[in-house]
């Protein structure tokens, strides 16, 4: 091999390495163009490509109206990516993500405090919604963007075939679940249907997320505020023991087919039995309505309020807030974007589905709008009513992430081992929760 050829190969190798570095540098930075441009906002949402298409429409309308450009990044594994960006101390300007994460973000110093008065149209957001964005220090750290509450999705064709009604109490729900499992509601001559879908895995805290409604309906709380900015764990209460025992004995360890097979290891992504058409009830968020309308089909199911337990029918309310990343110097533009997002115009775009894409605003936080009217779909009034009259949120001021995860770990273990002692299991959980609160200096 001649020297010239060797030199060429060396040059090629170095050029390739340079290219690799260049590509890597592009991929690892804050991403996209113009993040340093004062008239461009970098915005992150926790969205898959389907929801991102709706956000694209919202941001296009905003840019058209204000001239402020948006460098938009839909991020599926939002928290991991955000922690990675936080470690470089370079956060997105605006983020839209779950309300329950506010305490976690604030405790890490990731958020800029917000003065509600500085957001144009702030008066159109209800005081209830604004109160859910107050942090431990009494300042607001988010702007309410979208809200939702869980409802019961139930196969109306199965109910009709078996001559049953949508359940209004736990016992009725159990009876319907058993009928769905035993009386062949799909008429195929096989025992291959199930009553209720439950994402009961501890992964990402699902068991606590799905089980929270039952806890509240049974009169139990995971933690309780003492009114002076501190909290106490309450999972050792008689109501909690009673409720978790009922769930274990009747749902997870009850008659065959009350829950779908594999419920203790299911997450929302794998608990697809309602869509697959082999389970009849699913207590879940209204974001599923769009996909359920395709399968099992709009005419096959109805949306009803959650069946009531001994203490009521409260379900989990969730939502998303607009957050401003700490230490960015584009406050004016950020406020303009937030004002557009919560305006009637912005929320309407977010609530409508174009080309079958997922809407990103569920129940509007702008009180001048009615979800059912905007969508022309009466089912949304069931969700809106549930949110307004029979829902609770996870506390968002403390860092709820470890509390939710520990509760899920404990519930999942109790539901997995049918011979387990609920009282001692919950006592142990309560001690763990006390430790979590103590770590945050919030234990009463």
């Amino acid at each position, binding site marked *: 091999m001649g020297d010239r050829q060797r030199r060429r190969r*060396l040059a090629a*190798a*170095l050029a*390739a*390495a340079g290219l*690799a*570095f260049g590509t*890597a540098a592009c991929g690892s930075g804050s991403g996209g163009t113009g993040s340093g441009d004062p008239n461009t906002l970098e915005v992150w949402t926790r969205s898959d490509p389907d929801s991102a298409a709706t956000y694209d429409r919202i941001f296009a309308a905003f840019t058209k109206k204000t001239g402020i450009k948006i460098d938009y990044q839909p991020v599926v594994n939002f*928290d*991991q990516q955000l*922690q990675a960006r*936080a*470690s470089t*101390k370079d956060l997105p300007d605006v983020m839209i993500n779950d309300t329950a994460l506010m305490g*976690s973000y604030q*405790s*890490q*110093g*990731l958020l800029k405090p917000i003065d509600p008065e500085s957001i144009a149209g702030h008066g159109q957001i209800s005081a209830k919604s604004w109160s859910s964005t107050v942090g431990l220090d009494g300042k607001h750290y988010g702007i309410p963007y979208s809200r939702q509450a869980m409802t019961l999705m139930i196969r109306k064709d199965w109910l009709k075939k078996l001559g049953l009604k949508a359940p209004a109490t736990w016992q009725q729900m159990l009876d319907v679940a058993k009928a769905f499992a035993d009386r062949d509601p799909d008429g195929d001559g096989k025992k*291959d249907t199930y009553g209720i879908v439950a994402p009961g*895995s*501890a*992964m*990402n*805290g699902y068991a606590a997320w799905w089980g929270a409604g039952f806890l509240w309906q049974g009169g139990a709380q995971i933690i309780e505020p003492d009114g002076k900015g501190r909290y106490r764990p309450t999972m050792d209460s008689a109501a909690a023991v009673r409720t978790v025992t009922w769930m274990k004995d009747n749902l997870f360890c009850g008659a065959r087919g009350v829950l779908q*097979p*594999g*419920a*203790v*290891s299911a*997450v929302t992504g*794998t608990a697809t039995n309602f869509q697959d058409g082999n389970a009849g009830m699913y207590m879940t968020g209204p974001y599923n309505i769009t996909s359920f309308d395709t399968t099992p089909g709009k005419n096959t199911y109805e949306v009803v309020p959650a069946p009531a337990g001994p203490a009521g029918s409260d379900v989990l309310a969730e939502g998303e807030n607009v957050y401003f990343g*700490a*230490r960015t110097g584009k406050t004016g533009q950020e406020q303009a974007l937030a004002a557009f997002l919560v305006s009637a115009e912005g929320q309407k775009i977010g609530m409508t589905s174009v080309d079958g894409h997922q809407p990103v605003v569920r129940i509007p936080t702008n009180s001048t709008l009615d979800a059912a009217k905007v969508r022309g779909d009466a089912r949304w009034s069931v969700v809106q009513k549930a949110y307004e009259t029979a829902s609770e949120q996870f506390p968002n001021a403390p*860092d709820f*992430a*470890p509390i939710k*995860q520990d509760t899920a*770990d404990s519930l*999942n*273990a109790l539901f*997995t*081992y049918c011979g387990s002692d609920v009282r001692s299991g919950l006592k142990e959980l309560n001690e763990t929760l006390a430790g979590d609160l103590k770590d945050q200096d919030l234990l009463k």
Partner: protein
Amino acid sequence: MTATVTAPARRRGPSKKAVLPWLFLAPGLLLAVVFKFLPMGKGIWLSFFKVRPFLGDKWVGLDNYTRVLSDHRFQDAIGHTLVLGVGISLGAILVGFLLALLLEGQARSLKIMRTAVFLPVVTATAVVGELWRLMYYPTSDGLVNSALGFLGIGPVPFLDNPDTALWATMVMGIWMAAPYNMVIILAGLAGVDRSLYEAAAMDGVSLWQRLRYITLPAIRPALGVVLTLAAIRGLRVFTEVYVLTGGGPAGSTDVWMTRAYTLGFSRNDLGGASAASVVLLCVTLLLTVTVNYFRKRGDVR
């Protein structure tokens, strides 16, 4: 006299010949430093802090390590990691060896079979996990359970029973790793002197004797490579568990890495997660060095 002659030659500095390999290595080394060693160093550094990027990290000394090592869920995870790591490694070597023996040769049909058998290695773990979740479906509709049904067994809730979930995960791990080992062992088998087999046949030795006294000694270098790789990979098992069970049910398949992941990303405790990862790094390093030591000692003998 000779020494006085060679000494000035050394002082002339590194020759062009010595520099060239480093020049070729430089891009790779630079990439490794930027994307591997610096983050690794940062991880070790963070393990001594309560991590709060915007409020200032708080020095906590060895607190994160104490917390992680005294957490009963991490202690349980050590057991699961060892069972899974050792089980997958040994199982994959055994199955890989059997596959290699079955698929050794030049025939065209064997090449097709080898390619088919190798597919799990090049398939994304998430896809493999989804596939096995369907195969393990806990009713008689599931592929494995319908097969067991013919034998009058089951249906078995493979992934939903804490007594079977870890073993079910291990079987998937072996299925994924065995073909990789097969390829390395096949390469080793190709180098076995055929005349030895012919001589053994003339001596009338049994199949087991042939394996024990000819095949195994001949492929020892290949087995050494496979063992070293298994030692490195065994303890850091993560994706297989994460996609198949997420550590559940009731933490029965939680391994060291899934716990570290939960600590870092579900509980936002990056300091604790870093400490857990550093402990794993140290144990893996120790295991690799030990395996290598015994391998080299075996080679010398």
